[in-house]
C-alpha cells in the first residue's frame, strides 16, 4: 500500500500547543486523519504508551501502524511523506536551516518560560516575565516586516510551530502583567494574521479555555 494510502491517526490532547501544530499542518496539507483525544489528566492509554514508550507524550502521529513522535519531527515527516501536498519547510537550503533554527528556538524557550510564569511567584516570576519579553522581542526581530515567518514561502514551519502559543499569550499576559501588543507589537500583529488562517482557527481553543486549563493544572500541582 502506498504511504499516501495508509491511514493517519493523531493521538493528541485538546489544549496541547504541540498537538495543535500537527492539527494545523494536517489542515494546511488537506490530509484526512482520525483524531483521538487522550485524556491525559486521567492517565495514558496503552496505545499512547506503546507508540511513544520513551517520552510517553502526545502528539503521536500513527501512519498505518508506524508511530512518529515529537511535533516538529511529525511536521517534517508530513512534508516528506506527502510531497504532493503544500510543504511547511521552504525548498531553499539556507531558508530551511533558518526555519529549523527558529522552530527549535520556539521549542526551547516559549513553553518553559510560559510555565514558569504561572507556576512561580515573586522574584522568579519576575525573571520569567523578563525572559518572556526578551523571547517575544527576539521573535519580533526575526519576523521583521514579513507577513509570516515563512517569508516568501508564506505560512510555514516556524509559523505552525509558534501559532498554537498565541492562545497562551493572553494567559502569559495575565500572569506576567504585560501586553504583547506593547512589548512586541510585530508579534501581536502576526497573532492576528495567523488567527484568521483557517487551519489555525480550527485547531486552537479560545484563550479563556487555556486560562481555565492552567487553573486546573495549578490545582493539580497544588499551586496557589
Amino acid at each position, binding site marked *: 500500500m502506498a*504511504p499516501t494510502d495508509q491511514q493517519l491517526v493523531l493521538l493528541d490532547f485538546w489544549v496541547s500547543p504541540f498537538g495543535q501544530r500537527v492539527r494545523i499542518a494536517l489542515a494546511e496539507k488537506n490530509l484526512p486523519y482520525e483524531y483521538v483525544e487522550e485524556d491525559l489528566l486521567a492517565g495514558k492509554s496503552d496505545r499512547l504508551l506503546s507508540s511513544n514508550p*520513551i517520552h510517553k507524550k502526545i502528539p503521536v502521529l500513527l*501512519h498505518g501502524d*508506524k508511530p*512518529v*513522535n*515529537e511535533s516538529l*519531527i*511529525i511536521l*517534517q*515527516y508530513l512534508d*516528506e*511523506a506527502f510531497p504532493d501536498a503544500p510543504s511547511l519547510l521552504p525548498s531553499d*537550503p*539556507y531558508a*530551511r*536551516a*533558518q526555519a*529549523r*533554527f527558529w522552530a*527549535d*528556538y520556539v521549542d526551547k524557550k516559549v513553553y518553559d518560560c510560559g510555565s514558569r510564569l504561572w507556576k512561580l511567584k515573586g522574584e522568579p516570576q519576575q525573571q520569567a516575565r523578563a525572559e518572556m519579553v526578551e523571547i517575544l522581542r*527576539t521573535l519580533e526581530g526575526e519576523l521583521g516586516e514579513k507577513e509570516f515567518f515563512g517569508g516568501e514561502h508564506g505560512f510555514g514551519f516556524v509559523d505552525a510551530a509558534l501559532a498554537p502559543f498565541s492562545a497562551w499569550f493572553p494567559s502569559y499576559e495575565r500572569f506576567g502583567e504585560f501586553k504583547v501588543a506593547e512589548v512586541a507589537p510585530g508579534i501581536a500583529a502576526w497573532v492576528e494574521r495567523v488567527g484568521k488562517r483557517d487551519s489555525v482557527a480550527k485547531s486552537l481553543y479560545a484563550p479563556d479555555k487555556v486560562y481555565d486549563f492552567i487553573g486546573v493544572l495549578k490545582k493539580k500541582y497544588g499551586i496557589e
Partner: protein
Amino acid sequence: MAAGEGDLKLLGLLVSPFVVRVRMALSMKGVSYEYIEQDIFNKGELLVRYNPVHKKVPVLIHNGKPVCESLAILEYIDDIWGTTGNSVLPADPYERAIARFWANYIDDKMFPSWIGLLKAETEEEKAEKVNQTLAVLMHLEDAFALCSNGKAFFGGDSVGYLDLALGSNLFWFEALRELFGVAFIDEGRTPLLASWAERFGEAAAVKEMVPSVDKALEHAKKFRAFFAAAAAK
C-alpha cells in the same frame, strides 16, 4: 572549488561533540573550510555576531551567512552537498523521522546527563547522573537494533546522521571513564553499541576529527572550574 562550496568557515570548540559531528559530516563530503577555534569561556566578537541568539558553537558560515544548531547544520550539509559522497540522512521519510527522534533524544537527554556528571558537586549527584546516562544508553542500545536492521551503523552500511549524533560523544565517554571509572558503553551492558563504537572509531571519514582523550580531560578541568566559579556567584 567544488560546486556550491563558496566561502566556508566553521566557528567551533575542538572538544565539543556538537562541533565534532559537523566536522565529521564535512569530512564525509570532502568539503574544505576555514576552522576558527572559539574561546567559549571568553566569547569573542565573531561568535556573538554570527550567533547572537545563543552565542554557542558550532556556527557554519557559508558565503557570509550563518547556520546554527548542529543538527540543523547536518541537514544543511546534506541539502547543499546532497550529490557528494554518502547522504548524511537516510532517504526514506519514516527512517528520517526515526533518526531525527533519536538525535534529539541524544542531545536533549544524553548530553545533559553526562555534562551533569561533570558539573556534579556531591557523590549523590554524581551517582544520579551516572545512572541517568546509563539508562539513556540502554534505550540507545535498543534504538541501534531497530535502526541498523542488522547492518554496521545506525545509518545502514555507512556512517549517517544518527551515527554522527552519538559517535561525536564517544571520546568523551573515554574521558569520563578515566575521570569517574564508569564505562558508559560496555560489552556486557550494551553489546551492540560496544561493537558499533569500534566500527565508528575505525571509519575513515570520521577518524581524524576525533579529539584526543587528553584534550577532553584538559577541557573538563577548565569547564569544572568555570562552572564552579559561576555557581559560586
